């Protein structure tokens, strides 16, 4: 059987049911990492933790891709500053929620209040940042936003704001050392007093922990998986929201703005308002998703919000195909599992089974040896722990070039969802009239 017909059959089976497609994808990724774990000889705890980490990153990148898809896929707003808006969300939440006594001090607000405030702040800042560029062409918005995100990052890193006092109020970003965030809120499900150093489990916690203890699974892993489940619920909600928006008259206007702003305006739509609203909403969502991302780690640092973070989301979106919410999830999951996490696992498998030594110090050195048709130095270089980020970048570049040439629409970008809240094929009342 040719690969073409296999592909056609796979598409026939998976393509017409998005839920089936997503479940199949999750199983495939899970299977791959279970295999990695077996090959690397992980214990059960290690295997389950590997799966947790991949599921966590997949869910986060799927959500980020969905939020970016609202801006770029639906409305054609080229937001190159996603990382900056994520940083604003995380830091606003962190500073508002940090105890007044902490160093740097915060405002001591309850976590839910801090999160809601952070979402609002990110949305408003997003709207304001877009304001000067929104009337210009897409490329200007890209320039403004990428500059904005760097301004945000450098401001957060600046020692001047690390621990400061403005108008009598003491607070701080923590500067280059980063900011401690509230502890993982999901712990409240399992512990009676989650803030304690050695907290006692509550009824649910005791039941769960004792159930998995014989299997050698640690308490933190139970908490980690509970967090992933919450993330998946958020992802489901966001997915539903995006489909609703895509099929609404609002989504219809966005679609037409993306195609031809002048025509949309000539039909009486105030395109500036639509663009600002969409941009602000997308940024607010990015702020929220970044909060979900960092809350599990309990720590944020300006390093995490470099422009490369934005490009990661764009790559996830391009893989899945712009404009399709299902594509965004597929792209986010594939990016996180294969491109982001994949290289380090491949490296560990290679290092485990091939005894490579004498790795060159630089990539140039490794490539130079290729002249003698000896690939071992390159392989040895590639599987070093320190070069994994270089390898990842090379892989990303290759994938991008391949996508641009062979699948410019991404995996699901060719799909066209009809932007209407009702089935347009139906004309029930009219047919009744004719009878």
């Amino acid at each position, binding site marked *: 059987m040719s690969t073409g017909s296999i592909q056609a059959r796979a598409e026939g089976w998976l393509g017409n049911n998005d839920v089936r497609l997503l479940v199949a994808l999750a199983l495939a990724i899970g299977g791959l990492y279970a295999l990695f774990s077996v090959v690397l000889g992980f214990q059960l705890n290690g295997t389950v933790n590997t799966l947790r980490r991949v599921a966590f990153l997949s869910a986060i990148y799927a959500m980020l891709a969905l939020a970016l898809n609202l801006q770029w896929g639906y409305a054609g707003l080229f937001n190159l500053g996603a990382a900056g808006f994520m940083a604003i969300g995380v830091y606003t939440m962190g500073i508002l929620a940090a105890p007044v006594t902490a160093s740097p001090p915060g405002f001591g607000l309850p976590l839910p209040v801090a999160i809601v405030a952070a979402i609002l702040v990110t949305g408003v800042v997003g709207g304001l940042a877009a304001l000067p560029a929104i009337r210009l062409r897409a490329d200007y918005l890209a320039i403004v936003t990428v500059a904005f995100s760097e301004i945000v990052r450098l401001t957060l890193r600046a020692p001047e704001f690390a621990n400061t006092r403005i108008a009598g109020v003491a607070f701080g970003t923590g500067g280059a050392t980063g900011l401690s965030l509230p502890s993982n809120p999901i712990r409240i499900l399992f512990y009676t007093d989650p803030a304690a150093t050695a907290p006692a489990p509550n009824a649910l916690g005791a039941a769960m922990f004792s159930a998995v203890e014989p299997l050698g699974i640690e308490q933190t892993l139970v908490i980690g998986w509970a967090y992933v489940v919450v993330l998946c619920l958020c992802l489901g909600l966001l997915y539903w929201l995006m489909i609703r928006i895509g099929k609404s008259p609002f989504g219809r206007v966005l679609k037409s703005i993306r*195609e031809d702003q002048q025509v949309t305006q000539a*039909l009486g*739509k*105030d395109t500036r308002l639509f663009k600002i609203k969409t941009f602000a909403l997308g940024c607010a969502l990015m702020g929220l998703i970044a909060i979900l991302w960092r809350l599990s780690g309990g720590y944020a640092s300006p390093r995490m919000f470099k422009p490369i973070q934005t490009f990661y989301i764009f790559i996830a979106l391009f893989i899945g195909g712009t404009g399709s919410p299902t594509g965004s999830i597929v792209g986010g999951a594939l990016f996180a599992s294969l491109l982001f996490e994949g290289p380090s696992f491949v490296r560990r498998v290679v290092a485990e089974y091939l005894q490579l030594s004498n790795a060159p110090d630089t990539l140039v050195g490794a490539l130079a040896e290729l002249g003698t048709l000896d690939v071992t130095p390159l392989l040895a270089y590639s599987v070093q722990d320190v070069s994994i980020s270089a390898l990842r970048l090379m892989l990303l570049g290759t994938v991008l070039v391949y996508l641009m040439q062979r699948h410019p629409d991404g995996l699901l970008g060719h799909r*066209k969802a*009809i932007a*209407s809240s*009702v089935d*347009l094929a139906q004309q029930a009342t009219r047919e009744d009239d004719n009878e």
Partner: protein
Amino acid sequence: MSKNAHSARSDQTQKGQQEQILKVENLRKTFGGITAVADVSFHVEKGSITGLIGPNGAGKSTTFDLITGVQRPDGGEVEFNDTEITGYRSDQVANQGLVRTFQIARELSEMTVLENLLLAPQNQAGEAVWRAVLPRARTKVVEQEKELREQAWEMLELFEIEHVAHESAGNLSGGQRKLLEMARVLMTDPEMVLLDEPLAGVNPTLEEKLIDRLHTLKERGYTFLFVEHDMDVIMNNCDTVIVMHQGSVLTEGQPEAVKNNDRVLDAYLGEEVKI
């Protein structure tokens, strides 16, 4: 054009008990050293089909752009339904009930024909994000969508393009795109439509169909101002003809009178004409 000629004409029309829907006074637009629209003044009567003709480069499309807010005029006034709309953004102009089509059909090619039509109506409840999403508020949106769907199908029937309803607009033929564009502006429920060369690239059968629709719609009370190069079409279908030349109005009047105007002929033959 002098002010006197202008007032004389408006006196004339007032005698005929005609209501003027669009008044353009001394409109001017320059691009660097080039004067695209020098001094354009004309009135359009409500419920009429008015033709706007002139050689290439006479400033017809720029005049359209200035009226509909695509470009801002350097001087002059535009009044629609006794509201001054000079310098309005194009969405504001459209919301007043004055819409336009473009010279080159600008269908939204990634969207289906029906989506194109459903985009157009004004004041859609579902254009607010929260209403589009929240379950309670959404019932209203769905109801409105159903109404619009009916309207859209009726419009498709009027223009006889029902068979391509679910087609991507980008797959339509040139003539069908013109029909779609007409149908789409009518979905905004306008009072007046500016048509920029609606018949360019349209085959004779389709042209007849389009002109026929134009008259049907005129009967329903719509006003049309359209740019066209085909003299026969203009002469046979327009109530009034406005002739532009080198950024100014050369003459205007009944088709017969314009046809026999030597200066119009000269302008079209590329001779120097004093305005």
